[in-house]
């Protein structure tokens, strides 16, 4: 029990100068984290949405990633936050996909299970409808729908590489860190993703 006494002693020592400095550091870190998270939250949600094809799951994945970044990596240098955050997010998305696969296999064996009850991501249904509007906006609506379907159907690693490199703007090194693979693998996955997307969307784009 000596260890409890030691720690209690440390925290109870009156040292207002140290406490004020610690509070200032905390405020600085908090502001920096707030700025960082607000800069990535929407794109992170879009990435999770395309990977999971479910808005609620995507929100959960983004919130988990935010929590873990703050819990475990707030003290890391600011320039490490982006690849770290997307690494955490990618892991969360993958874990959810795996759980969903296992759950789907189990549910398939149960009597009375109707796969139509499962929520599915439908970018066409979610795109805003315009009965009348500028041709440009309609064209953009179609492009959004087509691209999101095509990206959602990419193999996971190609999807990750494409979204992190093209959409989020990470460089090859940062993307490799986020994906947990080599830079060469990132380039390969990205190239293949582009080829797939161009083959499907050449007429739309």
């Amino acid at each position, binding site marked *: 029990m000596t260890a409890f006494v030691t720690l209690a002693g440390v925290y109870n020592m009156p040292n207002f100068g140290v406490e004020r400095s610690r509070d200032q550091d905390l405020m600085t870190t908090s502001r920096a984290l707030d700025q960082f998270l607000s800069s990535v939250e929407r794109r992170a949600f*879009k990435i999770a949405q395309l990977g999971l094809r479910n808005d609620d799951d995507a929100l959960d994945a983004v919130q988990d990633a935010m929590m873990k*970044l703050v819990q475990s990596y707030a003290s890391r240098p600011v320039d490490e936050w982006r690849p770290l955050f997307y690494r955490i997010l990618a892991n969360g998305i993958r874990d959810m996909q795996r759980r969903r696969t296992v759950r789907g296999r189990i549910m398939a064996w149960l009597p009375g299970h109707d796969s139509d009850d499962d929520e599915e991501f439908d970018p066409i249904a979610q795109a805003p409808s315009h009965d009348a509007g500028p041709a440009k906006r309609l064209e953009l609506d179609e492009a959004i729908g087509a691209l999101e379907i095509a990206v959602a159907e990419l193999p996971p690693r190609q999807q990750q590489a494409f979204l992190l490199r093209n959409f989020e703007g990470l460089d090859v090194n940062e993307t490799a860190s986020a994906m947990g693979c080599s830079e060469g693998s990132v380039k390969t996955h990205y190239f293949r993703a*582009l080829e797939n997307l*161009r083959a499907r969307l050449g007429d739309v784009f």
Partner: protein
Amino acid sequence: MTDPTEFERRAREVLEESTARLPGHTRSRLTQARHAALAQLENPARNWWRSYVPAGAAAAVAVLAVVIWSGPTQPVASPVEDMEILADADAPDFAEDGEDLEFYEWAAGEVES
């Protein structure tokens, strides 16, 4: 065929537009998620137990060590004592059966005669 760079630019533009159209309730939930995450940083008292986990673990190990090394309180017979008990159990106990003892004494007398 579209130039890859042009295609990439177009794809990014489309995704940016899609993101900009996120509904208000989604944006609101993202804001709430961000605030909840930052609250962990601003309220370290919530995670006070994290500071004591190492000390708690050390205390638990110390208690476990005491339990293991203090040994059992009940006496346990040694292997040597066990053998003596077994050996005694194998040996015939003539005192318990007086009738057999008288017979053996008579038989011994007959043999000698």
